[in-house]
């Protein structure tokens, strides 16, 4: 037991010293590198001041995605890949933005007839049975 303590004490010292020196030798590498965004756009300088607002916007977009049926496991990564400007755009205009999906949802009969007519004029391209621009 005494022999063990004789070995252990210098070991503890060795580990302590090496941990301290390891800590000292690690340069604070990334702290002082200024991001490219600061050069690309002067607006980035104000980032700190708007971070709270951006966080709220992203939270809002997350909520919208979940509401529209996106798998919650996917939502975080989808929001992360947006730029601040895109997140802001989505948070403000989510319901007004066009969702490209090629569906004519719930069209009334008169709209249907109108679209056949405009298809034939080459103004629209909804139906495959109309030959585009054949009335022109």
């Amino acid at each position, binding site marked *: 037991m005494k022999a063990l303590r004789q070995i252990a004490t210098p070991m503890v010292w060795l580990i302590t010293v090496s941990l301290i020196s390891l800590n000292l030798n690690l340069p604070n590498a990334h*702290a002082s*590198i*200024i991001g490219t965004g600061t050069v690309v756009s002067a607006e980035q*300088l104000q980032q700190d001041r708007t971070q709270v607002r951006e966080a709220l916007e992203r939270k809002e977009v997350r909520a919208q995605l979940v509401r529209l049926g996106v798998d919650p496991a996917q939502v975080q990564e989808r929001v992360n890949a947006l730029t601040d400007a895109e997140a802001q755009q989505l948070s403000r205009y989510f319901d007004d*933005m066009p969702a*490209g999906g090629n*569906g004519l949802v719930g069209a009334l009969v008169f709209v249907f007839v109108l679209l056949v007519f405009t298809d034939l004029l080459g103004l*629209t391209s909804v139906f495959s049975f109309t030959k*585009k621009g054949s009335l022109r």
Partner: protein
Amino acid sequence: MAALAWVTLLAACATPQTHHLLTYPEGLKPRVELVETPFFAQQEYQCGPAALATVLNAAGEAVHPEELTPQVYLPSRHGSLQPELLAATRRQGHIPYVLHPTLDTLVTEISAGNPVLVLQNLGLRISPVWHYAVAIGFDLERAELILRSGTERRHVMPLRTFEHTWRRGGFWAMVVTSPDTLPQTAKEQPYLEAVLALEELKQWPVAEAAYQAVLNRWPGNLAAQVGVGNSRHAQGDFPGAEASFRAAVTSHPDSGIALNNLAQTLADQGKLAEAERTAERAVSIGGELSTVFRQTLEEIRRLAH
């Protein structure tokens, strides 16, 4: 009344962009078709993932629409939104670039070999049918555009009809190139912002290649020089970062940011004497970031003494 209706309709029929393109087809081949562009027939409402997979595969990224669906599709809206197509492109390690909204730009990109993803409203404003397709060719003599669209591998549409549908989609179009190649019509500032968006996802090797491509077209661009340096620094390539920051300092001796990042990179390699001199230069330039410059200098002095 009927006459008035016709006048209104004819006014609505005007397609100035098509007219301009057909009147001044400067430097364009009369007919181009990117026949090699892959085709993914869309599943119901899935034109977003299908169109995105088309342009990504054309840019060399082997990805299937099914992999993109969980990244862009909104089940309750039966479709995909533009910002999410841009975001998903970044997640694949590619840079999406939104085009200047003219038909001239669109056909210029096709001529350069880049298929163009477009948003169309195939219906009317009162009854929209939003649709993503990929323009892959044009025929100026026949005034036609060729698209990979929906379930049609080769959809030929009169240019005038396309202009109507595209105008209702806000003339929105994007291209995806491989990171070391710039879109033909890329402009300096918007393209840098597109690369920056990818850098912010910490896709360092792609960002480095993209900033390098910017430097090849616009040598001496400060943001791209700093971007290459920062991307290399983040990957632990300090000598490479040093070379890039040195180039930035040489071409922009008044850039405190370039000096600051060079000083930090020198310090990271233990070259503390030169790091201190460089940081002092940054501090003497000052400006809005002078607090950061001073912190860098203090940190280097702490390490040196």
